[in-house]
């Protein structure tokens, strides 16, 4: 299947020498609802900025629905719409004009642009506000205005950078519903967030980015399973040729006498020791494996706790 977004070896060094992206790879399938999760400063906006031509990349390649942004930028741009993290419309323009003008930039004649603007402003609950100046809208309305603007050329890929930051719970739910609906109708969606809960309730696939590196890229399910596991490192009294039999527990030999075992949280260690003892393998020492994902997860959860 064609990928909605393919990123390879993407690097970004800002003018001040700061290395915001250290070579990331990312695949987003067509039709996906994809989350890019990471703490503040991880490089989420930088990544999306490069994809949407707002930031110059230092190295690497980006393709949108097979259109490389270096060689086929116009077609890549036609495929995607972006809802940026910060409000970036003209505060003095009227709501409807903002959406219609954006359509014009895509070459959509004004009669069609007006129909589209009406359609999206209605479905986002902004039609009553069409003659208001953008600055008169509430925060949640401003965010929805940017969604309408991003959709006016009917892109196949909608990219949202922290769409629900600063939006109250109720509005957040209705925005989630809207996004789920257009995803079901076929629009691929990528959103960034630093709320795990948001990613969890919306997205099928997820990448986790931290300090300019992708540290996890999987389905939401397997991420949750992974977060639910603890990894222990066991030092053994003898060299093993092959993995001892541990029922259905996930285990690996790091070297001949070091075994790593993944245990679901709350599973208990007794069964591991029982089975090893039965195979005449003694454990000399044991420690908990420090896991960057785990640490990050804790950090994200703490963040969330602090914000709610």
């Amino acid at each position, binding site marked *: 299947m064609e990928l909605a977004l393919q990123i390879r070896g993407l690097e970004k060094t800002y*003018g001040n020498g700061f290395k915001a992206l250290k070579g990331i790879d990312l695949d987003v399938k067509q039709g996906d609802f994809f989350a890019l999760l990471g703490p503040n400063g991880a490089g989420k906006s930088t990544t999306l900025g490069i994809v*949407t*031509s707002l930031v110059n990349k230092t190295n690497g390649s980006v393709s949108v629905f097979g259109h490389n942004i270096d060689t086929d930028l116009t077609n890549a741009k*036609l495929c995607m719409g972006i809802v940026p993290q910060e409000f*970036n419309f*003209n*505060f003095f323009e009227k709501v409807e004009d903002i959406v219609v003008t*954006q359509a*014009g*930039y895509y070459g959509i004649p004004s009669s069609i642009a007006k129909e589209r603007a009406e359609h999206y402003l209605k479905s986002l609950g902004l039609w009553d506000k069409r003659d208001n100046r953008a600055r008169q809208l509430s925060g949640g309305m401003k965010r929805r205005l940017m969604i309408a603007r991003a959709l006016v050329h009917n892109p196949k890929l909608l990219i949202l950078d922290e769409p629900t930051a600063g939006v109250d719970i109720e509005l957040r739910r209705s925005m989630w519903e809207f996004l789920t609906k257009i995803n079901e109708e076929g629009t691929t969606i990528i959103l960034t967030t630093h709320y795990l809960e948001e990613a969890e309730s919306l997205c099928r696939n997820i990448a986790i980015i931290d300090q300019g590196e992708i540290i996890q890229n999987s389905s939401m399910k397997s991420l949750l399973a992974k977060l639910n596991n603890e990894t222990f490192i066991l030092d053994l009294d003898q060299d093993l040729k092959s993995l001892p039999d541990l029922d259905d527990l996930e285990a690996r030999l790091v070297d001949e006498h070091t075994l790593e075992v993944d245990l679901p949280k709350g599973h208990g260690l007794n069964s591991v020791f029982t089975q090893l003892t039965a195979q005449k393998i003694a454990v000399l020492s044991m420690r908990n494996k420090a896991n960057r994902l785990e640490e990050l997860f804790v950090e994200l959860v703490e963040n969330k706790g602090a914000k709610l």
Partner: protein
Amino acid sequence: MNGNLLWVAFSTIVVKEVRRFTRIWVQTLIPPAITMTLYFIIFGNLVGSRIGEMDGFDYMQFIVPGLIMMSVITNSYGNVVSSFFGTKFQRNIEELLVAPVPNWVILAGYVIGGVARGLAVGFIVTLLSLFFTDLTLAHPFVTLSILFLTAVVFSLGGFINAIYANSFDDIAVVPTFILTPLTYLGGVFYSISLLPEFWQGVSQLNPILYMVNTFRYGILGVSDINVAFAFGMIMLFIAVLGGFSLHLLNTGKGIRS
């Protein structure tokens, strides 16, 4: 994008630009009307009647073309510099950057927006001048084309200024320290034949002199300078400033990190 789509994108920018300066008409259209009316009354009527003739015309007739040109220069420059800087500052330039609009269309849209304001103000000032003097066009084609081309030159200048500007102060520096002096010394109020020979030579390095004098030639039929040379010089300015503006846009100077 094909020609049709480019045309839609271009006219969208122009319409947005015209909507901007007409929305804030109290800041954009009224001040030059008031200033120029004062010039007409004070310099043209009161002081002008004591000055007598300039290049064979009464003083009011002499300064009207210069003052129209001065309004066109100031307003086309001012429109693009403040609009494009505002677009950068509020970050709604991103609306254009994410869309498939080629840079030359962005540039052309903003420039024509500036030309529209310059010509709108020029038209208002011309109407006002009719209360003070009669205008006949000696060379209508020269008059209109020099007006248009001058507005293009200064719209481009405003665009470059906006790209380099980091603060609202930066957009006031060039108009205050360069544009206004050059305009006042560009033969708006006097014929350079009044100057000592040395200062005549210095004045000839001032591009605005050629624009003002060519415009005056279009209306009155007399000029201190060679009109064909003036057109050539203006075309050169447009090519150089336009090319440089495009280069800045292509590299993302000031708008893409």
